[in-house]
């Protein structure tokens, strides 16, 4: 699910950047470091705007300035039970690996409808029901997230397509 979240980030700035373009520089730094980051809990999709850059404080000893920036960002936190669209990255006899944006989702064979079967002899290998449903590398799938597990800088999830209205798009 997507949220607009207000967050705080502390940026230290080298004295050589003190000057008229300091604000742009801070914004760039923030965008570079935050956008696309995975905290293990959620993904930061996009930094919307700065609420408050605050006043810089020169650190004693080093001469660097420390800014505490308040900003708003769109974040995505995947939830159990959420339905997402994903792209297949590889298919294996044990299941299907997909990517839903930044999130890697694995669909075990048990969570694939039983009429869609593993077919290793085609190139590339695929899951198919020998009718109109073919799942191979690059296919778009709609899946439901069954479980989410945060890792240090990534989130792993497992999904299912064994329900109504799920499966290849």
């Amino acid at each position, binding site marked *: 699910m997507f949220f607009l979240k207000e967050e705080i980030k502390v940026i230290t700035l080298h004295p050589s950047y003190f000057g008229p373009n300091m604000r742009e520089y801070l914004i760039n730094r923030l965008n570079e470091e935050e956008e696309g980051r995975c905290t293990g809990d959620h993904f930061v999709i996009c930094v919307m705007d700065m609420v408050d850059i605050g006043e810089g404080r020169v650190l004693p000893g080093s001469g660097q300035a420390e800014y505490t920036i308040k900003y708003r960002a769109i974040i995505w936190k995947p939830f*159990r039970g959420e339905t997402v669209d994903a792209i297949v990255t*590889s298919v*294996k*006899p*044990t*299941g299907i*690996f997909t990517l839903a944006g930044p999130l*890697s989702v*694995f*669909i*075990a*064979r*048990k*969570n694939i409808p039983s009429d869609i079967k*593993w077919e*290793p*002899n085609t*190139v*590339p*290998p695929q899951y198919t029901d020998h009718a109109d449903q073919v799942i191979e*590398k690059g296919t778009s799938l709609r899946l439901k997230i*069954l*479980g*989410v*597990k945060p*890792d240090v800088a990534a989130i*792993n*999830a*497992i999904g299912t397509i064994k329900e109504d209205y799920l499966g290849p798009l």
Partner: protein
Amino acid sequence: MLLRLPPSLHYPITVTSLLKQPGDAVERDEALFWYVYQTTVTEGDGLGNKIEVKRKFPTKFESTVDGEVVQWKIAKGDVIDEPVDVLEVDEPCAHEVQFGGLCAECGKDMTESSYNTEVADVMRAPIQMAHDNTALTVSAREATRVEEDAKRRLLSNRKLSLVVDLDQTIIHATVDPTVGEWMQDKENPNYQALSDVRAFQLVDDGPGMRGCWYYVKLRPGLESFLQNVSEMFELHIYTMGTRAYAQHIASIIDPDRSLFGDRILSRDESGSLTAKNLHRLFPVDTKMVVIIDDRGDVWRWSPNLIKVSPYDFFVGIGDINSSFLPKKQELGPPSKPGEKPAPKPTKGALEEHHVNGATAKTDEQSEVSTLEQLVTMGGGDNPRLLQEQSDAQEETIMHQVEDRPLLQKQRELDAEDDAAESSDTSSSMDDSQDLSKHRHHLLEDNDRELFDLEVRLEQVHRDFFDEYDRRRSRALGGRVAALRGEKVPSKEKDVDLKLVPDVKDIMPHIKRRILGGVVLVFSGVLPLGTDTQNADISLWAKSFGVVIASKINVRTTHLVAGRNRTAKVREATRYPKIKIVTTQWLLDCLIQWKRLAEEPYLLPVHPDDRGEPISPGSKELAESSWLSSSDDATGDSLADDEEATEDILKSAGMDQMSPIGYDEEQQAAVHEELKEFLGSDDESESDSDVSMVDEMGASKKRKREDGDGSGDEETDSAGEEGDVPGSRLAQRIKRSYERSTGLKEMASAGTEASTAASTTPDEPDEASALQGPAESSPVDPAEVDPAEEDDELEREMLAAFEDGDYNSEAEEQIANENG
């Protein structure tokens, strides 16, 4: 699943009541039954006395799993003395497939644990099965099921699995930017050979290697090889390169992914940086798997392995991804099959320059010099300390990018060519690296290994399915007789996994026949102190049925000699039955899977060696091979020194490839560098070093060495001021090469002087110039005392280095002068 009591309970216990009935749902940590246990505790009686009393304590036993109770194995009132099964629980999910710590089937977190956890849930699925993903693990049962499916499919397609290594097996890759330049340059002699080299850029390759270009040469015949082999085998890639590297290579050799699919395993997923393990890909059984690789040791000489000769197209580069692997044990690199059996008179290697180079020599060791030495210099030689290996990998790459070993080689080659043209005596005198003299380009494109390999794979495939068919027809016949009238399930008729023969039996069976009955003794092949039974070549040979012996006796059938005129060669001549062959015979047999006729490989035994004691002089000549005919006393004594050092190094267990130990090839390299160095000196200041050497002898060596060392360091630092401060390896290699020069220099100088004197009487100028102090040379300054001369020399050297590098013209001249 059966719940079992843990051994940690306070036995005996008495069950007092069961809390769940069959059909009830239980959750983890929910109480299943009450029991009491008895123990002794210390209690106070309220008056300050402590007494020990026996007490009974009621406790409840909690479930470790979720599920539905199926059946109790115990009853109320039971007294239990030891761990037993108590309850059968039907689990809704056995968590057999897990992804990143989650059960892939039910979505539960597998890493949760509590005081009650006996076996972590993650351990239920310990096997990594996917080629390209380490987050996915499966249980042994799931793995077996998947693998059996795969085997059924393969059997019905009459295929086996083939695990293919990339580097030096089917391709050869380098990062030397020289290749890119040569590919652009139509004039370059190597242009032809490089025409099908492919290039790609790896960006995400870690710090320091941003955007490095890789040049990839496919082994000749690769495309048809893969096409043909893919009809008999399902192909997998298993490489020690990174994932990105493997993907790029795969898209080069298999653009539409019809051969390999995504069955690619790289070192990112391998789980080990030092060894390859078949169980990573085939966790359950490896009956139907064949491996092709150029390294046997990383597979621990698995019986599934077909070792191929390493593909070494970019001379001297080696395997760019081998930094993490244990060091390669070097033996003579196998020759290209096309040119092997015929003796090559013109192709003089280091060992053959003794006596007079004009005489045609047989092919005894012609291949052993430049290639191997370059492998050593280029990629193979890295510090192997674990924590340094990653750096080493980076350094290897940087080293290659900066130092451009190929360019260096080609330059040397050109210089030699020029030398050969301008001076007809040079061919006999040039004691350095004229291995490639008859070639005018460095890179050769004549490898035939894949064609042989295809035949061998066909043979394995044929034998496997012959055996399978035989077993199946036997089994079917028997079953039909026994179960007449009963219907055999159709699936079973197709394939029967129990009847599948094992490649591990079939391949050794084929291989053992080839060299069965051969009893080998090595002589001059392995460095002293190596375990002859466990060296790479021994293990390889043994897999072909060879018996390796250390002493020659009546049972010995072959003596494999790396050098001529060793003690063992002499001993072997006493047994007429023993065939004395070169290492090449053994290598060719192992590579071609054929027992080749020994005749083309017979070592020409020196007549002196036949049963007679040998004169020390002749021995000298034979063994210090590059030393030309020298009856000069200085030369001889120096040669002795030389040999002594060699022996010391070897006996000290120093490795051929370690930076401080030298083998002959490296000596040659040193020698070559030194010659250039001396040459430059010769040019500027005539012949002071040569004369000094002859004059001063051993006492001077130390000083010279010091002088060299300091000079080098200065140049090093001067040369690298602008460079990235990295490339420690390069520096070290350079330095270690230079440091040793004292001794060699003496020897070579002596040799040159003497050979010049003996073989070029028609060039009195040069001869006299080289001959040293006796004839005072025109440019030689007046007599100086040794110390002064030494200092002067040092200054000269510094000056020479600081002047900037000698240009190629100067090099040519030097080459001419030195012959």
